[in-house]
Structures are given as structure tokens and as C-alpha cells.
């Protein structure tokens, strides 16, 4: 099984790229065998992707860090979740061109992960604690659902615009129905809010625990914490708005809500990347010894930036 160690990022990235190109050709011509080809390519990529994640996690857990706590690990993990969602959509809505919207996000995440690098952030010993695991996992899945919400929200707006302009449907590909897109976006909004909420609360808990045992914690005014809190508050407001104000559950409003959530997420990413969160780690570690303030709760704190608390 040594050959499995030869699986690289290129393997699954290339598979997804080929699948995307094949999906793109659906717009132009009919090819009976194409769907089998796409399934084959995607499943091959998914296998390589899964193997890569498992092996990297195994290897790094044996060492000092947690692969999923690094930028690249986190991005590849989110991409993997999107591929799972894509496979589900292919099963539920085989005729639709969801791949044209999901696969670019997957490829972008893989590109971002590769660019940001595999620098380790979480010491494996810390990662194995239950609350850290809950914190990390919920934020990862929550972020993936926000991205997926963005994908469906965009598809909704495109489809709604086409129907308003009375454009006839293509005989080759079609969009999912507005009703399906709306219901799915709504569900994703709920799921992402719950997951990011769990991530936030577990992060707070981690920080409180760390404080009690005298480990390093993130200061509460950390830009990552603040921006993550804002993202969660936004999602919560969106959800409440959606539940209380019935028209918000209809049509484009749901799409706008999930799209705005995605924008918040992008801003969050930018803050985590450029606010120098990672560069403060040594300082935190110094403070750790002195029982420094709490680690980050929220969303992004689990992003690679979370290396702080760790």
C-alpha cells in the first residue's frame, strides 16, 4: 500500500479540474458517456483526496501537530466536504449543472490551501481534546455549509433572473428548481448558524478551560475573535429574520442572506490572514506561561489562526 503515500494534491486537484471541464462541455453538446466519465473522475479524485487527508492526519498526529489545523489541511478539509455535497447533488439532481458552481469553489479552496502552505498550527496533544475537536470540526463543517449556501444562493439568483427574463431552458443542462434551491439554501443557513454557534461556544469553553489550567489563551479583543463573533451574530440575525419574518423565507431574500453570509466569511478569512494572528503566537506562548487571556472562541479561531490557543 506504499503507493498510497505517492498521492499528492495534484492528483485530486487535477481530477476535479478535469471533472469541471467535462461539466463545462455539457453546456455545448450531448455525450452519452460523459456522465460516467465525470462520475469516474470525481470518485477517483475523491478517493485520492480522502486518502491524502487521512494519511496526512495520521502522519502529523504521530508528530507534533494536527494537519487539519493548518491552513492547507483546513482548506483541503473544506474542499472534501464540498465534494461530498457535490456527490450528493449529483445523486439527487443528476441533470443539473451544479458542478459548474461547486467545483470552482473546490478548486479555489485547494488552490488556497496549497498557496497558504501546510504549516502546522495545532499540537496534536491539544487537538485530541474533546472540545478542541468539537470546536474545529463544527467550524470546518459550518464554513463548508456557508460556502455551499453561497453556491446555491448564486444558482438561485441566476435561475431566478433567467426565469424573469423568460429564457428557455437548455436541452442539455438545467438548473435545479427555484423551490429546491430556496429550501436547500434555507436549510444550509440553519445548519451553518448552528455549527458556527457550536464552534463559537466550544471555542469559548476551550479558552475558559485553558485559562483555568494556565495555558495560553487568545485575548478577547483579537480581531479574529471579533470578526468571528460578527459572522456568527450575522448568521444568527439572518436565521431569526428568516424565522420571524415570513417573506424572508421566500425567493431571492434567502439567496441574499446566504450570499451575505459568504461575504462575511471571506472578510473573516482576510482578517485571519492579514491581521497577523499567527505571528502573535510566540507572544501568546510566552503569555501562556503567565496564564494569558483566553483563547478564541469563534469561528476563525479554529482556522489555522487557532494555533494561538493551541
Amino acid at each position, binding site marked *: 500500500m506504499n503507493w498510497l503515500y505517492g498521492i499528492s494534491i495534484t492528483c485530486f486537484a487535477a481530477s476535479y479540474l478535469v471533472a469541471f471541464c467535462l461539466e463545462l462541455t455539457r453546456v455545448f453538446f450531448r455525450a452519452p458517456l460523459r456522465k460516467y466519465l465525470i462520475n469516474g473522475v470525481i470518485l477517483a479524485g475523491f478517493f485520492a483526496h480522502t486518502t491524502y487527508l487521512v494519511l496526512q492526519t495520521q502522519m502529523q498526529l504521530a508528530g507534533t501537530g494536527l494537519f487539519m489545523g493548518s491552513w492547507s489541511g483546513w482548506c483541503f478539509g473544506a474542499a472534501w466536504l464540498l465534494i461530498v455535497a457535490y456527490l450528493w447533488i449529483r445523486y439527487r439532481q443528476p441533470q443539473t449543472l451544479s458542478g459548474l458552481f461547486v467545483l470552482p469553489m473546490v478548486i479555489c479552496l485547494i488552490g488556497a490551501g496549497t498557496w497558504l502552505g501546510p504549516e502546522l498550527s495545532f499540537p496534536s496533544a491539544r487537538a485530541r481534546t474533546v472540545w478542541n475537536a468539537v470546536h474545529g470540526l463544527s467550524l470546518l463543517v459550518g464554513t463548508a455549509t456557508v460556502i455551499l449556501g453561497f453556491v446555491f444562493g448564486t444558482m438561485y439568483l441566476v435561475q431566478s433572473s433567467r426565469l424573469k427574463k423568460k429564457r428557455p431552458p437548455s436541452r442539455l443542462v438545467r438548473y435545479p*428548481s427555484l*423551490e429546491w434551491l430556496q429550501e436547500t439554501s434555507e436549510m444550509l443557513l440553519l445548519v451553518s448558524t448552528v455549527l458556527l454557534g457550536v464552534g463559537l461556544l466550544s471555542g469559548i469553553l476551550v479558552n475558559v478551560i485553558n485559562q483555568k489550567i494556565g495555558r495560553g489563551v487568545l485575548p478577547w479583543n483579537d480581531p479574529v475573535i471579533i470578526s468571528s463573533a460578527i459572522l456568527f451574530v450575522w448568521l444568527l440575525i439572518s436565521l431569526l429574520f428568516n424565522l420571524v419574518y415570513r417573506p424572508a423565507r421566500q425567493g431571492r431574500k434567502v439567496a441574499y442572506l446566504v450570499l451575505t453570509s459568504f461575504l462575511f466569511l471571506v472578510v473573516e478569512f482576510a482578517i485571519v490572514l492579514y491581521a497577523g494572528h499567527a505571528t502573535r503566537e510566540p507572544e501568546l506562548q510566552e503569555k501562556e506561561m503567565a496564564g494569558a487571556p483566553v483563547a478564541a472562541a469563534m469561528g476563525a479561531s479554529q482556522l489555522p489562526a487557532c494555533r494561538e490557543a493551541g
Partner: protein
Amino acid sequence: MILKIIGCSHHQSSVEVRERLAFNPQQTFRFLRKFYDAYPQSEVVLLSTCNRTELYAAGQSHDLMPSTEEMELFLADSCGVQHSEINDFLFEHANEQAVRHLFAVAASLDSMVIGEAQILSQVKQAYRQAADLNQPMPLTHHVFQAAIRVAKRVASETEIHTNRVSIPSIAVGVFARQIFERLDNKQILVIGAGKMADETLKYIQGEGGRDFVVVNRTREAAVRLAEKFNGRVADWDALSDQIQNADLIVSTTGASQPVVTLQMYQQIERGRLQRPLFVLDLAMPRDFEPSVGECLNVYLYTIDDLQQECDRNRNARVGEWPKAQKILDQETERFMRELSLRSKGPTIQRLKQQAQQIKDIELDRLMKRLGEVNPQQQKEIEASFHRIINKLLHPPLESLKDEAETGTTGLLDALKRLFQLGD
């Protein structure tokens, strides 16, 4: 015999023009009456559907029927529009071209959705309406019967009707499916209870729709339709409430003014809480003001909006087109030949009668001169005379038939003069 058509169809005119020239059954009846009052020697049929308004007029000669311009003016006047406003959108055909056009229309080869079944019943209905006035219409009877025969032949000998897609089926199967994932939990409001509503409901039911509410000015028709589809009936006065609750509206009334105006919808809109609303306005003139389609989460489709899909449908069936076209060519040629022969019929009849008379007179004279002749001999003599007449008439009659195929009348005129047959 002359056949003329003037009219407009989805090929040349927009829905705005067509709805100004549309006739409901009562208006058609009044129009036909008025036409016969003005041109009593003519035959007339008015075909008015959502995609076309066509006026067919026939007569024995040009003198006995209106000119094309008179027909156009009459149509414009009846619709309350200026001739100049519609002139650019009208087409005209005469004789062979007119016959071919009618055949194509009846066979659904000229329809927006090629192969749709409705048009043939609409053609039959148009003819029946004209026939109900009890005016003699030998030529139109002949040509409309032929059109029905051609339509049936095209349907049975080609696959142009296979998987045919009518306007309702495109509207429901293609467009509604892009908005709704399922129809079984949607409230479907039907405004109007005519054939189009019936047809559309069949498709909606086929796609899983169950909850139907029918609203119609005539309650009896609404009840009939609702019973057929296990739906409910609501009063016309409750239309606003029903629109407020509906997810999908099929509107097919024959109203000459919009049934749902923007102002009316805006009053309802608040109560809908921005739920998506798919409106299929299949009426002509339209039942919904176009501006209603601009409202939030309203997807308003009219017949014209189905045009593109119909065009693509037409292209998909292009493989069958030559076969159908061949039938159309054959049938048009056959009909024109028959028509030509029919026009020569009286002359031929007179020629045969004249020959028969001569034969009878000469035979009678011969018998008297011969005196006693046994029955066998008499029979032989009569047969001989008969053969002579037939042999003499056969070449000119064959030549007349040949001429009928070319559509000229020179020989017929010559025959009348040579044998002094009169007109």
C-alpha cells in the same frame, strides 16, 4: 372558384397585435353575420385562436366576393382598429397558396408548437360555427373537409406528432418545473374554464398537481371543470383571495380586458408574503397586465414567451418535416385537381347529356325505320351507339382532365364554344 385568406399569425405579429384581432365565439358569430350581410354571395370562415386570426372567404368569381383590401378593411373595422395599424402584420393567400396554408394550419405544421393537437379541433370548430349560419358553403365545405383529411394523414403517416408538445405541456412540463420541485403541495388556480384550461389541467395533474380551484364567470362551466379534476369552485368575486393563496395560476378566459391589473395585484401582493407565483397567461387577449410580471417573485409567462421553446421544438422535428411537407404537396395538388375538375364538372355533364340526347334521338329514329328487330339485335345496336358516343367523347374528356391538372381553362372554353354548351 376562388379561395382567399387574410389574417395574422404568430409568425408575423406579436401578441399585442393578435390580441387586438382576437375573436371570442360570440364575436365570431356577429362577425360572420355581418360579413354575410355585406357579401351574401360569398362563403366565409373565421378562425381565431391564440396564435392566429384568419379570415377565409370563397366565391364562384371575383365579382361575387370582396377584394383582399375589402376583407382587410372589414376585419379591421370589426376589431375597432385602423387598417393602417394592422396592415403590416397581415398576410394574404389566394387559391392554391391558400389551400396549402389551410392544410398546414390544420395539420399543425404552421403552429407555434408543431404537432399540437388543439389546432385541428379549432379548425373544425371554426368551420362548424360558419356552417351553423345555414349559408350555402360548398367550396369551404370541400376545402375544410380536405384539410381535416390532410391533418389526419400527416398525423398517421409521420412522427411529427410523436411526443408532441402543446403550449400547455411546454408551460407545465418545462417552465413550471423550473420553479417548483413538486406540484402536489401547490395550490393551482384556474381562471376560465375553456378547452385550454382543461388541456392545461391535464398536464398539471400529470405532473402531480392535486389542489385545483376553478374560477369562472359562468359557474356551471367552472363546476364541470372542477368536477373533472376533483377541484373546487370559487366565486368570481373571490378572485383576489384565490390569487393571494395560489402558487400557480393558469388563466385562459376570453375576456377582452385584463382580468388582473397591476393595481389589483399590488393590493393582493402584501398578503402573499412574497411567495413565488407562477402565472401562465394563456388567454388571448391576455388576462394579466404585463406589468404584473415585474412584481417581486412573480413569474408571468404568456403564449409568446413559449415561442422560443416552440421554435426549438420545431427544429427537433425537422427530420419529419420533409415527409409531412410531401403529404402537404400531394394533397394540395390533389385538391387543386379535384377543384379544377369540379369546376369543369357542369360542362362535362352538359356535354354528356347532349351526346346522350343525340344518341337517343338517332337510335329512336333508326328503330322506327328498321321495324321489327329482335331484342338481341336491339341490344347490340344500342351498345354500338353507346360505344360510339363514348369513343367520341373520351379524347376530349381526357384532355379536359389533363388540363385540370395544369389549372388552365382554355380547353374548357373551347369545348363550350365548339359544342355550344353555354355557361
